[in-house]
């Protein structure tokens, strides 16, 4: 990752005065925040190297989901933190489904925000450190390669978001045994699971849907209720 992107963040939010406040606050915390006052500008700016994009859902003209779709469709895999309205379960589910990495309900406390940003950035740095190790996993007709950041199921290349990729990697590394939700959360989002936090379940559900497009009814990931998830090693144990 180029050094110029270090600690550079992009905020896509129509609330300009909030943006300025955040700029000032995050500077104290050691981040440089660029502002995009609307979705179109946001999509343009997102092309540059950012460590993280903060994306507000409620925006006039083009809402956060559309912006998210555009960014992900262009192949940009920068971690995205969605800023959703509190209590709106649908917003979270939709955001994660469209490829956001995590969400933070509004209004958030400044502490929560910085904690989330740090967690996601820390997670992507671990990725960067992992990269030279070049892990290749080949299990149950699923092929995962950390160098190229690609997944093939039945030799078909599938598109995954960074978070989904990490979830799959964590599950495949422990294939055959249960990975509890908290460990999965730390591996994928860089933070422990919170109360009433279903984001990891959403990411797993997205993973399953995408794999099912190719593998059909052959389940690769099994739910162990109350504990976590398990990657099925082969046809023998299903």
């Amino acid at each position, binding site marked *: 990752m180029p050094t110029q992107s270090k600690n550079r963040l992009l905020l896509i939010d129509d609330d300009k005065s909030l943006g300025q406040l955040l700029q000032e606050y995050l500077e104290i915390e050691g981040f440089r925040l660029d502002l995009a006052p609307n979705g179109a500008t946001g999509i343009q700016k997102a092309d540059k190297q950012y460590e993280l994009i903060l994306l507000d859902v409620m925006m006039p003209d083009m809402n956060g989901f559309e912006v998210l779709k555009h960014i992900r469709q262009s192949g940009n895999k920068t971690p995205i933190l969605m800023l959703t309205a509190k209590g709106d379960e649908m917003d979270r589910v939709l955001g994660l489904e469209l490829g956001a990495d995590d969400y933070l309900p*509004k209004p958030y406390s400044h502490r929560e925000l910085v904690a989330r940003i740090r967690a996601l950035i820390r997670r992507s740095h671990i990725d960067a450190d992992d990269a030279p190790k070049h892990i290749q996993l080949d299990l149950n007709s699923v092929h995962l390669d950390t160098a190229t950041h690609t997944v093939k199921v039945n030799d078909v290349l599938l598109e995954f978001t960074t978070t989904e990729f990490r979830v799959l990697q964590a599950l495949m590394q422990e294939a055959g045994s249960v990975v509890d939700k908290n460990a999965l959360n730390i591996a994928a989002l860089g933070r422990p699971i919170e109360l009433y936090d279903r984001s990891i379940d959403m990411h797993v559900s997205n993973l399953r849907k995408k794999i099912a497009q190719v593998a059909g009814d052959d389940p690769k990931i099994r739910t162990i209720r109350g504990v976590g998830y398990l990657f099925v090693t082969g046809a023998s144990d299903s």
Partner: protein
Amino acid sequence: MKLRRLLASATPWHTLFGKIFLWFWLSSLLIMAITNVVVKSVNKPFQLTEPTDIQVTTLVSHAHRVLDLYDLYGEDAFAELAHLNERERIQVYLVDENLTVIGTPRPPRAVFPLLAGLLNQEQPMIGTWQREIWMGPASIELSGHPFHILIRGIAEDADLPMASSYSESVIFAIALILSGLLSGILAWSFSRPLKQFRLASQKLANGNLSTRVGQSLTNRLDEFGSLGRDFDHMADRLQNLVSAQQRLLGNVSHELRSPITRIQVALGIAIQKAGPEAENILMRIERETIKLEVMIAQVLRLSRLENQMQDLQKKRVDLNQLLEQLADDAHFEAQASHKQVVFTPSGNNWVCGESTLLHSAIENVVRNGIRFTEENTSVDISTRALTFEGCKKVEIVVRDHGPGAPEDMLERLFEPFYRAVDNTSDGGAGLGLSIARQVVTRHGGFISARNHLSGGLEVVIQLLDCEATGGSDADAPCQ
């Protein structure tokens, strides 16, 4: 209520269709019967039918008998005829051209128009009057004077079948069916649009605000048509009002939260920049801001719930699964403050409702318990099945090991913004239990609080067993 509904379904006169149908049908039958009586009592042209050969033979043989009697007895024959008439099944009358009855007692006056009708015939014919069957004329000559013979039988008489009585019963049957059919159509034409109205208003009441009665009604020119147009107009207004309210809710949510977010971030800057003396007071501002946000969130949640409950989609919910997950999550939260949440399942319990709503209701009760239970104690969730007034119910008991509440305050716990303990730093907005009551009541359930004998508060939620309510039927007897 139950009995009345049952009666209505079993007895047609409790429905509008039945009422109109039966009244109209009965009244048309009554009119027919009265008309029949009136017409029969008033003189009317009699229906004459042709007799069969046997009947003609009967008439001719009676005529010969009169001739024989006259040959034998002369003028005394008439007295003999009267004598015979009293004994025989068939009576014979001798009349002259002017319909004067000779010798025998006169038949009732009312029958004379019929007799006059018969006399005008060239061929013998049959006519009926009440239950009497008359036949004639057969012309004879006695001492050079022309006379006519008429004979009379009673309807049961096999020799003279009830020709016109038979056709009358057929006519009556046809009239019965026809008037029944017409009454049915009339009644249906009233009850069908009403049924349409009923379906539409039911849908509307269930929260489907785009419901309209449809063109088949609004295009009508009668009163149903104008009622239909008024109904649709009302539904339009209702839909506009509700959607405006929902828009307002969304806007309020966004507009109120933006400044709070800004305050939060500004506070972050202030805390970083201010010296340690100011930090305490800034933290205090932060706590109050968080509380403000929590309250806004709960008020909004309450109104969202109310909206959602307008259109309650009841499904079978596995209560054990719901409680297990809820207890798992709550336990996780409670651990941070050295408290536990323990769920003890018992048997399989299915309830009817919207699982997200039920989840949030029970969750609020459990969170309340976590807030008040002492450190190193647990909030216990248990369930049991019970039968109350013939209805199968599921009881969920959430018990904490805290201070409980004064007896006279127990009922007030479910009021919005009410706090039994004046504790302003616990982060509660005082809406959790009132949300729970809203949801439970809306599901046909019941929620109450009581102090446990050995300390702590016990909140009891009773919900209908899903088997008992028979799925999503809103008219279920246990509702």
